[in-house]
């Protein structure tokens, strides 16, 4: 990078893209899970020359690296790959804005204050409960007031702000009864204390605050983790393009391209805009866009579209459509349409809150009115209203649901699944049909070489060396197979790759070739892709390839089938490979050559028959379907658009965690219902007492703490095996 060695150069595009001196680079390493991994990752990173320090954050599964300016992220990911860890570079700009989780710390601080105050007030209250009276009781009450009032004012702010916002907007939310309960409890307790009365609810008010803040903090942590993970994934791909200007090539953002611009695309890069190839030959990987598993040969005059991957040769493209006009953007619009059509799921807790908030207000008001009519005593009736509000405090809603969600999503996170949407778990529990995409989802990009054993063992090293040198998926598949077999590459020279034809080189003075050596007529009879290998003018060895299944794909399909779930395979690929995979996985329902809009239509049809569909897909052709499904999962290797459209992102290579996720979701749902039942039981016992005027501060404190503790304990059970 020129800018890095010349810090005095005027800033331009180059300097913005180049890493800053002493940049703290961030890597996402989803596979770290133990103390040993921490050491291994840090050692691998520190082993890279130029790296001054590396620090792993196990909670966020990230590594921060302090490195010299000339170290780029690819060196680091490569180093981690050799150490056996998959790593993704993160955009430090995006991370920097999130590394200081200001809201989380703020909540934690308020929680600490509330907890401190609650413990002290509870201690003082013990004296009152155990029979202190007269001046002693008044003194305890006054000290409690002195601790509780400032604490409640400070700690309860998030509730007051939210309740005020809801009231101004003219509707009720959970925080309105909470705020009312706190304010009323503090006000009546204060007036009781002034009149030397026995009923002061300072402990209950601050306890309410503390338990609800704990729920709020858990909720925030779950959401923040999911959100930052999603933002990190978004930061993985920063679309850039090399524009060929009159005064030389310049790196610009893909969004800055205009029709008519000329763009150079290097092998391995994504096509930044739609256009026509004007120079160069190459092969284009369309697997993410259409689901085709084999690359297509490209020559001048052909059209390529944004998002496709360039494999083997350098291309020069004349842009015909950029930004919003590309095919890519048009499919994104389709996603928006599909999303608008999906009825937004309402979280169980919100449904409960919708019934709960008005109910509690009416109950408290009726109780207060009844007592006022009966006794004509304002003081007693307000006391009763406060007691009712405190006893019916929505701890079960405010603490139990976030506790379950945290436990469940924490468990999924350990398995490599990121839950992006709050209601996704609840929707996942209802799934009865699972729709899979083929390319990139059930299968991986590099195909599996079959019958490479036909290459004599003396020639395998040469084949490995040739295959290693190419970026073509078939060559990669062969290289993978040979590497697995432990074959070392031979020394070759003068490597030359002809896009669409293959790769050739010199080995011990003989010319060696790998690629399309057999003519079209004979390959057409083979059901699968094939590649020829030849040394000098010796016999041609034909290696055939099959789509390689993702690890865990077979186990996942088996497990889902044994549960009686309906499984469908929808692919944009040609009929033969789709059928081969469906047969291998014993999936009876499958369709090939599906266009994006057809996939989405298929899902809508399923939804109209009442099926709750889980869509698993990674490509652009899946995005509309992902958005249309009841709930959706995308692997992290997929396109941005697919990850954005889906509810859950799968980080690792293995598909099997999806089955575990379904199980966890069902358990989480059961725990939430159990918690609601528990909370209702407490209310059924305690509310009549409160209305009857028998709820002493001791009963209020006991019922609240006990119900909060039981529901959280029940939620925590989920996180364990």
């Amino acid at each position, binding site marked *: 990078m020129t800018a890095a060695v010349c810090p005095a150069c005027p800033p331009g595009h180059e300097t913005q893209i180049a890493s800053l001196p002493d940049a703290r680079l961030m890597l996402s390493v989803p596979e770290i899970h133990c103390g040993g991994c*921490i050491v291994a990752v840090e050692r691998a990173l520190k082993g890279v020359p130029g790296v001054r320090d590396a620090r792993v954050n196990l909670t966020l599964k990230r590594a921060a690296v302090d490195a010299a300016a000339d170290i780029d992220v690819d060196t680091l990911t490569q180093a981690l790959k050799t150490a056996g860890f998959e790593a993704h570079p993160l955009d430090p700009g995006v991370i920097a804005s999130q590394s200081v989780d200001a809201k989380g710390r703020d909540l934690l*601080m308020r929680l*600490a204050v509330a907890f401190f105050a609650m413990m002290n007030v509870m201690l003082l209250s013990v004296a009152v409960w155990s029979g202190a009276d007269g001046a002693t009781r008044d003194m305890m009450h006054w*000290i409690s007031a002195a601790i509780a009032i400032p604490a409640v004012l400070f700690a309860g702010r998030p509730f007051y702000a939210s309740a005020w916002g809801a009231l101004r907007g003219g509707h009720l939310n959970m925080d309105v009864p909470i705020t009312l309960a706190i304010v009323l409890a503090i006000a009546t307790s204060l007036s009781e204390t002034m009149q030397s009365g026995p009923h002061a609810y300072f402990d209950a008010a601050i306890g309410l605050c503390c338990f609800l803040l704990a729920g709020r903090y858990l909720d925030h942590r779950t959401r923040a983790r999911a959100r930052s993970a999603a933002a990190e994934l978004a930061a993985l791909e920063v679309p850039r393009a090399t524009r060929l200007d009159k005064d030389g090539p310049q790196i610009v953002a893909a969004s800055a391209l205009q029709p008519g611009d000329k763009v150079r695309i290097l092998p391995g890069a994504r096509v930044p805009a739609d256009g026509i190839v004007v120079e160069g030959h190459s092969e284009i990987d369309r697997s993410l866009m259409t689901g085709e598993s084999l690359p297509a040969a490209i020559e001048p005059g052909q059209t390529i579209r944004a998002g496709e991957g360039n494999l083997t040769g350098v291309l020069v493209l004349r842009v015909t459509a950029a930004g919003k006009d590309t095919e890519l953007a048009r499919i994104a619009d389709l996603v928006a349409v599909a999303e608008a059509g999906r009825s937004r799921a309402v979280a169980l807790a919100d449904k409960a809150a919708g019934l709960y908030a008005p109910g509690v207000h009416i109950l408290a008001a009726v109780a207060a009115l009844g007592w006022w009519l009966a006794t004509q005593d304002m003081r007693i009736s307000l006391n009763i209203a406060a007691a009712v509000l405190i006893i019916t405090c929505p701890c079960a809603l405010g603490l139990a649901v976030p506790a379950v969600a945290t436990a469940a999503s924490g468990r999924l996170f350990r398995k490599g699944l990121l839950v992006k949407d709050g209601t996704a778990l609840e929707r996942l529990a209802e799934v009865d049909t699972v729709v899979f995409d083929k390319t990139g989802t059930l299968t991986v990009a590099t195909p599996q070489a079959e019958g490479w054993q036909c290459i004599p063992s003396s020639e395998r090293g040469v084949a490995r060396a040739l295959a290693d040198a190419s970026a073509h998926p078939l060559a990669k598949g062969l290289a993978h197979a040979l590497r697995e077999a432990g074959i070392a590459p031979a020394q070759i020279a003068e490597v030359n790759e002809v896009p669409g034809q293959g790769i050739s080189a010199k080995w011990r003075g003989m010319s060696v070739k790998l690629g399309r050596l057999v003519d079209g007529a004979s390959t057409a009879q083979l059901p699968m892709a094939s590649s020829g290998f030849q040394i000098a003018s010796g016999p041609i060895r034909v290696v055939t390839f099959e789509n390689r299944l993702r690890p865990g794909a077979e186990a996942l399909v088996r497990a889902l089938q044994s549960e009686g779930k309906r499984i469908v395979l929808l692919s944009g690929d040609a009929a033969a490979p789709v059928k081969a995979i469906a047969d291998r996985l014993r999936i009876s329902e499958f369709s090939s050559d599906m266009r994006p809009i057809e996939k989405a239509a298929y899902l809508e049809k399923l939804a109209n028959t009442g099926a709750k569909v889980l869509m698993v897909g990674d490509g652009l052709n899946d995005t509309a379907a992902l958005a249309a499904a009841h709930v959706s999962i995308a692997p992290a290797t997929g396109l941005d658009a697919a990850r954005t459209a889906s509810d859950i992102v799968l980080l690792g290579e293995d598909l099997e965690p999806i089955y575990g996720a379904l199980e966890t979701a069902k358990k989480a749902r059961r725990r939430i219902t159990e918690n609601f039942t528990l909370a209702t039981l407490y209310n059924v016992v305690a509310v009549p007492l409160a209305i009857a005027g028998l709820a002493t501060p001791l009963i209020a404190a006991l019922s609240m703490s006990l119900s909060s503790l039981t529901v959280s304990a029940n939620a925590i059970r989920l996180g364990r095996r």
Partner: protein
Amino acid sequence: MSVLGILIPVSLFLGGLGLGFFFWLLKRGQFDDPDGSANRILTDEYDDQPKS
């Protein structure tokens, strides 16, 4: 009962000390990577940068 006049302020002061200590830890970033801290204690390598 006059002993309460001493004990209550003392207990409040001690509690407040704990609260202040917690704030200090929060600011030092001790709660940024709870899982990592739990695991690092088991590794053989000397951790010369326990914070951050």
